[in-house]
């Protein structure tokens, strides 16, 4: 019987959809009734119900203040422990709370769940005192947001136990978090993460992780080494408290709308995969009253998932999006246009664009080849002539916005810097590159066959072709082939453990800071043992094995060194990474090139942080501009 009902419902919704097809341009004012099949949780049972819902939750009241944005892509996950990308981060930051948050301007840790924190003398034990008024909520898609209650009917409050569970869940190998190595700083996390879940002492290892609830609202972390940046790590989704009882009941499906229990300023209202993801305000969030002076007026976020920057920008220009990124090819026009140039936001962000070299695949297994390729990239020209967004040529991996970054220091890879920044300039760098290549046995590039791979994207393709042209002009006899792959396939291809024969010689990636410290860069990305180590650095490398060992030891030593010593150590590490080992070629430091309509007053945080609750939208101004 139910099957029949479903079939009818599906047919009806098809008809309704078909009828709506013609007038999709004007969706805001009409309240449409749509028949849907909704998955609902009724007393722990999953049932599918045919219901009639309306597109606006309260047809009688005024329309909620809605901001329209583009997520850019489908967020791969809403699970804080599993997220590794900025889109997922952006979503998770809105629906979940961390112990701390990062200040949008300074990137310093500021209170969120934790009101205050302190450390012991050598920064190895951290204690966070939490607030007692953050509650878990569940949102019925298209309906109300309700506070989750426990067995006795009391509201469930976010407690220290939830934080402990969240942290241990990330370290637990059964969770399969790709980001767990961030928490290796916590005592016992690495041991647990690398243990066999079937092992006898697994429970012991689980209990031994250095995080514990002192009381309901005090949580204590024990670290392997003193880290002043730990409060910033506590702002990352991998440390977020998560609802244990939901996860244990629903397993992997706990993040699905209808099941998911959250605690942030917004909740997921509708998630149509590949199409849109809408958030609505969580009325039970403490901040609306507590931080009323900072809070904005956004009640609803309508987020589309459009991957093409040019399409998204066209929507912005037709007022369908309130804020958007600016595609490369529009830069000249945006800069000169009297209206758009005022809406343009262009400032540095904490990310680095780089090419990595697979050090085990010929011909990039030769350090001279890698250095020559890196030297022959004219970073300044690339930034000025192709990207045009005020990006900064990079000579070190660590972005200058981090502690310990030697960016712009001509003692690190001076060939990557233009003359006015104290570097060699491109002409001299190319001369040197030619010599190196001749030494390596490829005079003028003869016999050199390089495969460069990047994920599918308009701008990556342009950069890759520009660099291909630079290499081709520097080494006329060389062959440089460009290949593209879809993002997920690409990530698999360049992963450390995937088969070597599938890998390219050169791969493209970007890295954005999780917390503004060089440890998050040189150590966590390139350490041969603890980092993601995509270039496959190894101590056994016949040419640079010793340098790799020195690199690993340097970054390890920096973790426990004093701040002054750290600066020197990280500089040495960058010299090794970029110049002597040449495991990667830093290309430029990102800038944000985005636009926002004058009626939207928004916060510009680091990628993956929107601070939506602080945004303000002037609905009247927008309506006036759209001629309503």
């Amino acid at each position, binding site marked *: 019987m139910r099957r029949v009902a479903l079939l009818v419902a599906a047919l009806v919704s098809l008809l309704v959809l078909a009828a709506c097809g013609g007038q999709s341009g004007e969706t805001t004012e009409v309240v449409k009734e749509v028949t849907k099949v909704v998955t609902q949780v009724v007393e722990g049972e999953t049932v599918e119900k045919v219901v009639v819902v309306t597109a606006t939750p309260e047809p009688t009241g005024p329309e909620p203040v809605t901001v329209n944005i583009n997520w850019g892509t489908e967020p791969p996950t809403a699970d804080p422990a599993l997220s590794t990308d900025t889109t997922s981060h952006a979503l998770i930051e809105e629906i979940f709370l961390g112990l701390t948050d990062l200040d949008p301007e300074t990137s310093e840790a500021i209170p969120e769940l934790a009101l205050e924190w302190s450390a012991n003398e050598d920064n190895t034990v951290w204690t966070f005192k939490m607030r007692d008024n953050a509650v878990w909520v569940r949102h019925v898609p298209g309906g109300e947001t309700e506070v989750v209650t426990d067995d006795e009917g009391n509201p469930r409050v976010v407690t220290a136990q939830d934080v402990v569970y969240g942290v241990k869940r990330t370290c637990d190998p059964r969770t399969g978090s790709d980001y767990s190595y961030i928490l290796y700083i916590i005592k016992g996390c690495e041991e647990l993460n690398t243990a066999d879940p079937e092992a006898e002492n697994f429970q012991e290892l689980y209990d031994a992780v250095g995080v514990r609830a002192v009381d309901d609202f005090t949580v204590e972390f024990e670290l392997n080494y003193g880290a002043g940046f730990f409060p910033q790590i506590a702002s990352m989704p991998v440390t977020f408290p998560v609802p244990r009882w939901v996860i244990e009941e629903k397993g992997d499906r706990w993040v699905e709308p209808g099941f998911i229990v959250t605690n942030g300023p917004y909740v997921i209202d509708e998630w149509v995969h590949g199409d849109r993801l809408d958030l609505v305000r969580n009325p039970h969030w403490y901040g609306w009253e507590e931080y009323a002076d900072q809070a904005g007026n956004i009640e609803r976020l309508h987020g589309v998932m459009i991957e093409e*920057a040019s399409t998204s920008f066209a929507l912005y220009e037709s007022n369908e999006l309130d804020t958007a990124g600016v595609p490369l090819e529009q830069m000249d026009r945006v800069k000169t246009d009297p209206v758009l140039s005022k809406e343009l936001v262009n400032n540095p962000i904490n990310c680095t664009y780089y090419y990595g070299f697979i050090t085990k695949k010929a011909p990039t297994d030769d350090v001279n080849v890698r250095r020559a390729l890196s030297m022959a990239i004219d970073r300044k020209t690339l930034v000025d002539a192709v990207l045009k967004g005020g990006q900064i040529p990079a000579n070190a991996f660590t972005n200058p916005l981090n502690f310990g970054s030697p960016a712009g220091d001509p003692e690190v890879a001076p060939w990557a810097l233009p003359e006015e920044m104290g570097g060699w300039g491109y002409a001299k760098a190319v001369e040197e590159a030619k010599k190196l290549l001749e030494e390596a046995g490829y005079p003028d590039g003869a016999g050199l066959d390089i495969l460069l791979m990047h994920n599918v994207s308009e701008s990556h393709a342009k950069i890759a072709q520009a660099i291909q042209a630079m290499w081709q002009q520097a080494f006329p006899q060389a062959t440089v082939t460009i290949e593209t792959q879809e993002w997920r396939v690409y990530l698999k291809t360049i992963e450390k453990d995937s088969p070597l*024969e599938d890998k390219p010689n050169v791969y493209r990636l970007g890295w954005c800071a999780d917390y503004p410290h060089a440890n998050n860069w040189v150590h966590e990305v390139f350490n041969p043992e603890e980092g993601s180590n995509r270039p496959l650095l190894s101590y056994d490398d016949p040419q640079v094995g010793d340098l790799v060992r020195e690199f690993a030891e340097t970054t390890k030593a920096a973790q426990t060194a004093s701040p002054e010593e750290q600066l020197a150590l990280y500089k040495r590490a960058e010299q090794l990474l970029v110049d002597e080992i040449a495991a990667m070629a830093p290309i430029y430091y990102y800038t944000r090139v985005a636009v926002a309509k004058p009626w939207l007053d928004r916060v510009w945080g680091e990628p993956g942080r929107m601070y939506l609750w602080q945004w303000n939208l002037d609905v009247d101004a927008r309506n006036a501009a759209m001629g309503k």
Partner: protein
Amino acid sequence: MTVQTTTAKKDWMVEAAKRRGRSPLHDAFRQLLKNRVAVISGIFILILVFIALFVDNALFTFFTGGETKPLLAPYRYGTANFLYTDKPPLTRTEDGQLFLLGTDYLGRDLLSRVLYGTRISLTVAIVASLVSLGIGLVYGLISGYSSTRVDNIMMRIVDFLYGFPFLIFVILMQVFFKAQARRGDAAGIWQFFLDIDKAMGGMFFIFIAIGAINWLGMARIARGQTLSYKKKEFVEAARAIGATDRRIIFKHLLPNILGPCIVAETLAIPGYISLEAFLSFIGLGVNPPTPSWGLMISETYQALRTAPWEVMVPGIALTLTTLAFNMLGDGIRDAFDPRLRGE
């Protein structure tokens, strides 16, 4: 009375003598020359062929060795001038280089790129149509000439392949061959194919893929034609004097069905050209920086408002070429059709 008859008979014989040596092909060609649009299209295509052959001196260096240099194209297609990116047509650089049709986002000369692109488009047109004509003709002939049972089986295979999603096939093929090339451990014939592919800028397997799928339509046409001819008297006569099946197929049937098949193939060529453009557009075509018109459009269409010439130049080239092939195909069809042949 007698005299008159003789004269009439004589006239007829003179006429027949005059016509001797004029094959249907010859007739069709004369007919084609009367079609002005088709002639212009044909000349345009001949010019394209000339450009494709002599855009650089690869034709000569192929035999003599040495470095290839542009002949007709002013510059190399891959040379980037980062000081002159996105420049409109007729831009002159400080050191006197002239970019007649402007430059693209890397400062590459658009004229050179669009001329080099001719090579890709024409090669696709010719190779893909030869592959599909070759396979389709033979398959259709055999199927049409064979017994009903064999014919049935062969045609059901064609029907089955028709249902096969073509795009997925091409994508799989491209992905597979690119992965093979990346592994770099191929040997023997594989290595030979991969070398060809590399030399052609990643085009080889596109030809194969396009040709290998498009013979299906050709096979059906060839079979239909064969069926209508195999009951004709001249085939009966050939069989009566003991001609082998192979001789009947290739000596008697093939020349007769060739005309309609060539016409069908000419009309399919614009499809191949746009298919290559499409494949390059979605990133499965040639490897950059080898210019193909489709690739050039896909790289620059977002800049339509800021630098319209970047997409207009390859766009116009693509449009004119497909138009020319279509017009020529139409002309050839009309020329072969006796009903349209007015004296």
